[in-house]
């Protein structure tokens, strides 16, 4: 295997942000054919979870599970066959704020539920439990290069294992004193089902490679679109979803540490069989 270009096929897409609540409605907005809702959508009810867990679910769990489920539905794939990569810059910032504040005051009163929700792999763990998937997941972070690092690991797994992989990324708003140093606003979650080969479900082909760059310059989403997720730690990834919505070939750069990921995004569709 060489370090040259590699291909993955996008079979399913999920996207959720308060002003882009779902991939189906986001498409026309990102193409400029419709305007984004003025009212912020309420946090999605986390799918897959039992009712008690649903009530206690953190924002990261709710939005990560929402986009993961929708992307699998879009790809018409059984989630249990997918390995998964969950990428998040900051983890659940409300839970970090709760833990740090409780530890500073009454440390012996730390809630066991909120403690286990604090682990970075909580959304991935709930995904595995909710879907019954025994396939491996991982949970990653890479500061401002988190989206690129997650996509890269998913694409590398597709290449190495020749199997489809679910790539999820999400970040939420900083709370409490933590918000004075950690900057992330609103909520944004994305999911892609990436496959090694094209199928009837494929909507795009992404040809990817690493490009060296001392200070890589990310491709930016169009101004109107960028404003819809501005301030979220993952805002730079929106351009990829804009490209997927555009259905026209486009080259998109996502940064990594010391290098960048160049993604050539092209629409893909298997010609409909002749009527007969």
């Amino acid at each position, binding site marked *: 295997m060489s370090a040259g270009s590699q291909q993955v096929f996008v079979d399913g897409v999920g996207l959720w942000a308060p002003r882009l609540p779902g991939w189906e409605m986001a498409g026309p907005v990102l193409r400029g054919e419709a305007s984004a809702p003025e009212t912020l959508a309420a946090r999605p009810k986390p799918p897959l979870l039992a009712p008690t867990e649903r009530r206690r679910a953190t924002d990261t769990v709710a939005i990560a599970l929402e986009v993961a489920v929708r992307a699998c539905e879009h790809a018409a794939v059984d989630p249990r066959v997918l390995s998964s990569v969950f990428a998040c810059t*900051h983890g659940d910032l409300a839970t970090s704020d709760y833990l740090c504040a409780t530890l500073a005051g009454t440390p*012996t009163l730390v809630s066991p539920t909120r403690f286990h929700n604090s*682990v970075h792999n909580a959304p991935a*763990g709930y995904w595995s439990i909710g879907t019954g998937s025994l396939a*491996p997941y*991982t949970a990653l*972070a890479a500061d401002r290069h988190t989206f690129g690092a997650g996509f890269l690991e998913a694409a*590398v797994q597709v290449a190495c294992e020749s199997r489809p992989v679910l790539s999820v990324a999400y970040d939420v708003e900083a709370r409490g004193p933590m918000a*004075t140093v950690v900057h992330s606003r609103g909520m944004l979650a994305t999911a892609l089902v990436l496959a090694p080969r094209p199928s009837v479900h494929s909507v795009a082909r992404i040809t990817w490679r690493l490009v060296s760059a001392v200070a890589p310059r990310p491709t930016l989403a169009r101004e109107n679109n960028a404003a819809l997720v501005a301030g979220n730690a993952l805002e730079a990834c929106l351009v990829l979803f804009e490209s997927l919505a555009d259905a026209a070939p486009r080259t998109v750069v996502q940064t*990594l540490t010391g290098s960048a990921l160049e993604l050539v995004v092209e629409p893909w569709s298997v010609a409909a069989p002749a009527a007969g």
Partner: protein
Amino acid sequence: MPDLPLATWLGRVAGVEGQPLPPALAAWESRNNRLAWMGLAADGFAEAVRAARLRYGSDRIALVLGTSTASIGASEEAYRNLEPDGQFPPHLRQPILHAPHALADFVQHALELHGICVTVATACSSSAKVFAQAERLLRTGLADAAVVGGVDSLCGSVLFGFNSLELVSPEPCRPFDPDRRGLSLGEAAGFALLERDGPAGPWLLGYGESSDAHHMSSPHPEGLGARIAIRDALDRAGLGANDIDYINLHGTASQKNDATEALVVADLFPATTRASSTKGWTGHTLGAAGILEAVITWLAMDAGFTPGTLNSRALAAECGPQIRLENEAAELRFTLSHSFGFGGSNCVLAFGRERPA
């Protein structure tokens, strides 16, 4: 750390408090990064990476590190010492210190690496899974070498968090003992440099990864995910269970982990496979456990020796003949290391003193 109103035993690294980071790296100052720095300085590791940098170029060496809590201890300290206007104290205002990527960002600067740099945070399997991720980067040619490892340090979040789950033992942990009372928390830093080839082992022969799909803080009762990870590791290594001379077990001394893991080992391995938990020496170092126990496994292979299970006085009924309490001399060709994490994330690594014929 705050004074602990907890009656427990800790695997605490002595002297971390008295070893500040060098001035050029002072912006990353935290207990976790100090421990990382101590690890990099040990055993000529930083020099080995410097030599690899000259061989491959700093942009061709990937950095994949595991941690469960990174520098959250610094965030806890900031919350205990907020300024009257609610700001963090000035020395704790570096945003990266409060991010899960704090450790890898620090090590990347300390080692002057410019390749792919990523944090794996899957709780107690973190620094085992880094081997799998790094191997894939080498296999696909995205890097020529990789620094892997992990660091986790004692902090309020894990001490009081595990305490809230009633998993912490009031005495030094006794893995696989019928009267075990839970785990002892510890801290550690460990690193390894992975290359495609070299004059001598140890060799990473395979890895297995799986999920339990069962519960956030409790293993699958029949160890379903663990079994899949073991099979995956053996298959990738081209080995059978009969080939395995020693297994470094996850063996946290929690009731459920040890009962399940003992059953799985008794089911899958012959009596000639020796197995033990070394957490009696180190405590459970969480996100650093994978690398720490990989290193212990390599030392055992190198020395022709299997560590026993410190502190444990007897073996629980579920244990097969594989699990040993005493240290023993033994020729070890092929070994496994188990890491089973919170959130049902499992990783098993297969190592060889030599490559299989």
